[in-house]
């Protein structure tokens, strides 16, 4: 299949996910968010498709920025109207879809230049390898994000079901402390590696 056709299919698929993201964010939102979603959504889908074809990082980022602002607007409305608990599963899905689109954008920008710049015959191997990377990574990310979604929802609902038995589980601060501990532990593990100085020097960071 022609390279451009393959890229068009990839663009089409990613545009569908972008549209789905906008729909998920706007579906239970108030009317004004839905209207805004319609306007912002159409702009961002057009910008996304154009950015995908050009491998233009700025257009893709602009498109995602619009969707993220729609998400924030919807979230603020939920905080204001105290409906965040009711809409949490769908709102979380919207959030993870945005993150998934961020990954698609990263893939598209790093690989598009490769497809636009096929130079010598051996570049065909490179293009084939690139498609393999793109599709396998999309699949892996799909599984990863779905897993994250299911785990988060399960954690929340398990926490809520345990709440009547152990009321302390309903306290937000417990979750916050847990999250802080995880992230702090995580940063310590990553930054404390004995080879870090060598690696940073190799990457030109002092």
């Amino acid at each position, binding site marked *: 299949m022609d390279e451009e056709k393959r890229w068009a299919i990839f663009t089409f698929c990613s545009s569908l996910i972008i549209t789905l993201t906008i729909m998920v964010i706007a579906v239970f939102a108030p009317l004004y968010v839905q209207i805004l979603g319609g306007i912002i959504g159409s702009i961002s889908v057009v910008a996304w498709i154009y950015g995908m074809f050009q491998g233009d990082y700025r257009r893709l980022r602009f498109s995602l920025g619009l969707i993220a602002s729609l998400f924030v607007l919807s979230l603020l409305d939920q905080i204001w109207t105290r409906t965040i608990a009711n809409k949490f599963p769908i709102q979380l899905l919207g959030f993870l879809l945005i993150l998934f689109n961020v990954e698609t954008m990263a893939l598209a920008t790093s690989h598009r230049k490769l497809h636009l710049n096929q130079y010598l015959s051996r570049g065909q191997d*490179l293009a084939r390898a690139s498609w393999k990377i793109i599709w396998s990574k999309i699949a892996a990310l799909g599984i990863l994000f779905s897993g994250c979604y299911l*785990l988060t929802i399960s954690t929340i609902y398990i926490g809520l079901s345990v709440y009547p038995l152990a009321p302390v589980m309903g306290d937000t601060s417990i979750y916050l402390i847990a999250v802080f501990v995880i992230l702090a532990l995580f940063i310590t593990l990553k930054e404390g590696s004995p080879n870090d100085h060598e690696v940073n020097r190799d*990457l030109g960071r002092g």
Partner: protein
Amino acid sequence: MAFTKKGLGYLSIAYCFVAIAIAFREFYLAAYVIPIGLLFLISNSLTSVDLSGLKIERKLHPSRTFGGDPIDVTIKVTNVTGRDLKDIEVEDIVPLPLISEGGLNSVPLSLLREEALEWTYRISPAKRGHYTVGPTLIRHTDILGFYEKGIRRVEQNSFTVLPTIEKIGTLDLKAKRIGAWAGQVPSRRVGVGTEFYELRLYNPGDELQRINWKASARTGRLVTNEYESEHVTDVLIIVDTTEDVASSMFEFDLTEFQLTLAGSLSSQLLLQGNRVGLTIYGAVRAWVDLAFGKRQLIRILENLAMVKTGPALLPMSYAVESVALALMPAKSLMVFISPLLNEDTVNVISSLAEKGYAIICFTSTLGEVKGIEPRALAVRLLSAQRRANAIRVNSVATLVEFAPDVSLKSQLRRQTRIG
């Protein structure tokens, strides 16, 4: 491992959610941190790679080129780490003066065990010189690109961009000193050649085709033609690059023009079988001994590629004259290529001519700039200075003036015999 901007961005989002959750006392907002934390944990646990077994080779083709011609850089990456590699990026560092013409120097890759991948990108050096490509940087990120690990591989490869040369056609040289081998320089002696030299009486054994029948009929005795023997000669090309004349002042690059002329002359003189040497005098000084052949041309062109304009540390009378006197046989031919803006050059030419060397001086005309603005006045001043020096040189040597905007071949064709 170090956090990428993306990783820091995700962390910032997590902390924003935490801050808003605290501010609004909203449990569900804090829950948004859970998937981010999970993404970090999973992405981190899936990443453990030793890049030391990754084999990278770089080939440059050709390793030597003429100005403007592109160079193909081929990178071959082989995974001999013993495990599959995902999410690596191989970037070959291309220094700034080199322009990418096609392909990519940075490629995202995933390689299976023992898999090899090869690709080529093309770079185009803007002008002559010595360039280096590399080193190659391998970056590895986790599946989500939160952390980055990098190592440097493959040392730099260098290549030389030689100055452009033109085909200038056969040079009809005169020389006071000739070599032992047959060539194309007339020797003022009777021998094997193409130029008529004199007539003499026929001797038994002379070739019949050399009999001059018209002269024989006039004199009534058999007369044969004698020809002037042609030999090779020794030529030392001296390139004066001391004058760092801004090319912006003229509509051409004076130094590049001089180097093209030096390269073209060397190529043609060597092609005609002569021994050619080179001296570069300027910010970079170089000396190439007299020698024959194609390898000598490459040596000369490689030295010309390194030229940098600017004042020399040593005076020309020492750096060029005394060395030339010591190494060049008497009466040899010396070719000066100079803008003749410096009086020292004129003094050295006069001194060498006095010592019996045959001198040819190639100099570029600077063109005319009309108007009274400072640039025009400066060009006129330089032109006047060059003209005055050229008149002095013309009295002791053969002066060949060139217009840089006309092809060398057509200008040299006008010079019937040089030297």
